[in-house]
């Protein structure tokens, strides 16, 4: 596609800050076609930006150097679900939710659950090393990537990794591509590890007077020896919005709410529920109880998703940040974010996957109000720095892309960034694959 209007609709991703039109969008349906395109691009030195659904949140799929957008959405076949070996092999354009629907039919479970699962493609998820609420117990995409097929910039089609959980055949090359944001090779097919679907789930909801107290409760639950499948946090702002749209009888003056999901066998889940309730009480919860039944539990989780929707609907621009800290510092980070909000007179909503230390402090702003926007940007900078100070990371699951490039120097040693550059050079000597991402060019 080359019509200007079609190109305009491939100029962005899920963020609000970046826009850049490609010169052409192509939709390959086989690895061979990708190979031909890459050979041509290498010969002509044309930049190529691989793209899935373009739902990523860091600018990773925005074609800042124009050239070719390689849109992988038509490579959308699930090739083989192996219920005996607990693996699935799939093309990269399959949407995560479609994969999950097929797996559930066979009592199989693929845990990584980025909340963009209705849009995100498997290829995008691998390239961004995505994760979600299940990360507490089950980890993120990289923990399930066994093998893949990819096309190198010179057009070579390579198979990396294999089909087994244990595999130490040389350097772990699939892991180098995982999270590489499309800068090293074009992934066309992946093999992922699956788990049996846990037979039983229960949900616990705990209400706190302060966000900080709920952060302490998360720590308490985990150190008591319980590993919930999910621990999600919502602050007062989110609770109030949920009650406005879907009344669930949540206390409107509560500072914070935690939702826990426990899964496993029935008897183990029941025991874990008791333990979580006890830990929350000890941490000072105002109210804590288990959801009555699956229906009520589903309502709470719908509310959790509605929480994010409420944030997205609340103001013209949102910085939905993605900082992660070691679990012992969750309460500190929350405290710090609240100070920053006060300092810059901003509304910063806190929602996140508290169980793995990954919070999404969301700064509400409006690009049209330059002064407000500038304050919001400053606040974001300070949130990043705070996360680093607590020994955390500037991105838990969204990636670096364009948005967090300028923080790389603080997040990584110069020697480590040089290693990234070196790896890039081995894969892509002409720098044609998704150029201009992750680290800043040396000036």
């Amino acid at each position, binding site marked *: 596609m080359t019509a200007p209007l079609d190109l305009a609709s491939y100029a962005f991703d899920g963020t609000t800050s970046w826009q850049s039109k490609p010169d052409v969008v192509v939709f390959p349906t086989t690895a061979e076609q990708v190979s031909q395109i890459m050979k041509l691009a290498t010969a002509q030195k044309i930049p190529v930006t691989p793209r899935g659904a373009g739902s990523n949140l860091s600018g990773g799929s925005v074609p800042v150097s124009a050239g070719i957008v390689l849109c992988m959405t038509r490579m959308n076949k699930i090739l083989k679900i192996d219920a005996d070996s607990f693996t699935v092999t799939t093309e990269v354009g399959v949407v995560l939710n479609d994969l999950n629907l097929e797996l559930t039919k066979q009592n199989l479970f693929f845990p990584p659950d980025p909340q963009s699962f209705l*849009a995100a493609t498997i290829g995008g998820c691998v390239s961004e090393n995505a994760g979600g609420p299940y990360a507490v117990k089950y980890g993120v995409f990289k923990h399930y990537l066994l093998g893949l097929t990819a096309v190198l910039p010179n057009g070579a089609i390579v198979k990396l990794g294999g089909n087994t959980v244990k595999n130490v055949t040389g350097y772990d090359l699939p892991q180098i591509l995982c999270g590489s944001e499309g800068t090293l090779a074009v992934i066309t097919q992946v093999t992922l590890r699956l788990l049996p679907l846990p037979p039983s789930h229960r949900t616990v909801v705990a209400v706190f007077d302060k966000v900080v107290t709920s952060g302490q409760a998360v720590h308490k639950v985990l150190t008591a020896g319980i590993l919930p499948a999910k621990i999600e946090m919502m602050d007062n702002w989110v609770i109030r919005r949920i009650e406005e749209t879907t009344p669930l009888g949540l206390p409107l003056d509560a500072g914070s709410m935690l939702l826990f999901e426990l899964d496993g066998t029935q008897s183990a889940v029941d025991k874990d529920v008791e333990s979580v309730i006890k830990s929350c009480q000890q941490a000072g919860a105002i109210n804590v109880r288990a959801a009555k039944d699956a229906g009520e539990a589903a309502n709470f989780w719908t509310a959790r998703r509605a929480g994010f929707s409420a944030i997205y609907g609340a103001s013209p621009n949102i910085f939905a940040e993605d900082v992660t800290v070691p679990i012992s510092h969750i309460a500190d980070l929350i405290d710090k974010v609240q100070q920053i909000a006060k300092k810059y007179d901003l509304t910063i909503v806190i929602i996140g996957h508290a169980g793995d230390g990954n919070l999404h402090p969301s700064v509400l702003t409006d690009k049209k109000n330059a002064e407000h926007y500038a304050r919001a940007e400053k606040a974001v900078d300070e949130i990043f720095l705070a996360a680093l100070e607590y020994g955390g990371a500037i991105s838990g699951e969204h990636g670096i892309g364009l948005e967090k490039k300028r923080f790389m120097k603080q997040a990584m040693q110069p020697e480590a960034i040089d290693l990234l550059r070196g790896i890039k050079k081995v894969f892509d000597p002409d720098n044609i694959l998704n150029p201009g991402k992750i680290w800043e060019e040396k000036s």
Partner: protein
Amino acid sequence: MKTLPESLPAREGDNLDDANKCMKCGFCMYNCPIYKVDHIESHVARGRNVLIRQANEKTIPTDAEYAERLSYCLLCGRCAAICPAKVQSPDINVAARTDVVNRKGLSLPKRVIYRGILKNRKLMANLLGAAAIVPGVSTKDGKPLRHMADFTSVFTKGLSLPKLSKPFLSSLLPAKTSPPQGVKIKGQVAIFPGCAFEFFFADIGEGIAQVLAKAGYEVVYIKDLTCCGLAVRSAGDLKTAQQMAKHNIQKLAKFDRIITGCATCGSALKDYGKWFGDKDPFKKQAQEFSAKVSDFSEFLAKEGIKSKAAEPVVVTYHDPCHMKWHQGISSQPRELLRSIEGVKFVEMEGADDCCGLGGAFTLAHRDISLAIQDKKMQNIKNTGAQIVVTSCPGCLIQLKDGVRRNKLPVKVMHISELMRGTEDK
């Protein structure tokens, strides 16, 4: 200083600025019947909202290319249903189309159809009546209406249209249909048949009135209603659509309850309030009218009426977009079907997936329309049902076309046809 609203802003339809509220999460892609076929971003709400936003900011021209991108939309409403930010993308698209029409005007054929024929019920009857007596148009079942196609330049590209009814509903249905003897009269309702039940499926139009009468209602039929206006509004000719709405509202003003058997008309009538701007003095009357409108199955599900199928049959149901996504009606027709003696109801996979018609969409983008139709046919076939029931004449046309193309041994029926039973036929 707080510069931002503390609560979610109201989401009024028909506002081009609403395109700015799209947060680009891409969930609409998961639900969009068109994107699922072609995976092209400028054909789905997220991409289109970006284009509309840019047209608003005048960074791209509102030319024919732009109008063409706006046409890649069934206005089915699935994107709005799944949108976390509750962006009403179909309304935004209609507003954008209206904007194009306001700037560029309508093509001559469209002007003739929307402003001349569709608006003037009598003229439409006369013209269609003339077409109906042309040999081969109304007599051969299931054949494309080629003469109509030439005549209006709308019906083309091989979609097999139903034969024209002979006679039309206006010669078939009395001004009042009373409940059969022995049935207690519960009240009076007016029916809004819509163009399809007037001219193409008049017998169904008659059946709708008779089932309502059987349920204890005196059914009033007013002959000089006009088209509901939805197709005209969808194409961006808001002014004509408003005139149609006004006409219908005034003609039906004295009735407390208006029933339609057409999902599309129902969604239009219930939306009339939204068709008029906040400052329009007619808005209030339109809103009051909209509140009095019920769909046939929505109305009857509460009535507990008994009907019996001619023989035991396996039935499945197709959710029209204008029913499920625009009116939120999906359980009621199923309840009704289950209540019919002799009916074994089976659910099909993707019952609420679009049939692919989308009004004029099927004519503009026939290949995509057929790809969507094919999937629907497969799902119908998998159920083993003998009858597929739906509540929308547009879906009836598309499903009948699909059944014919795929040679499926399946009957396509409006829900009232099963409820009408055999004794009246």
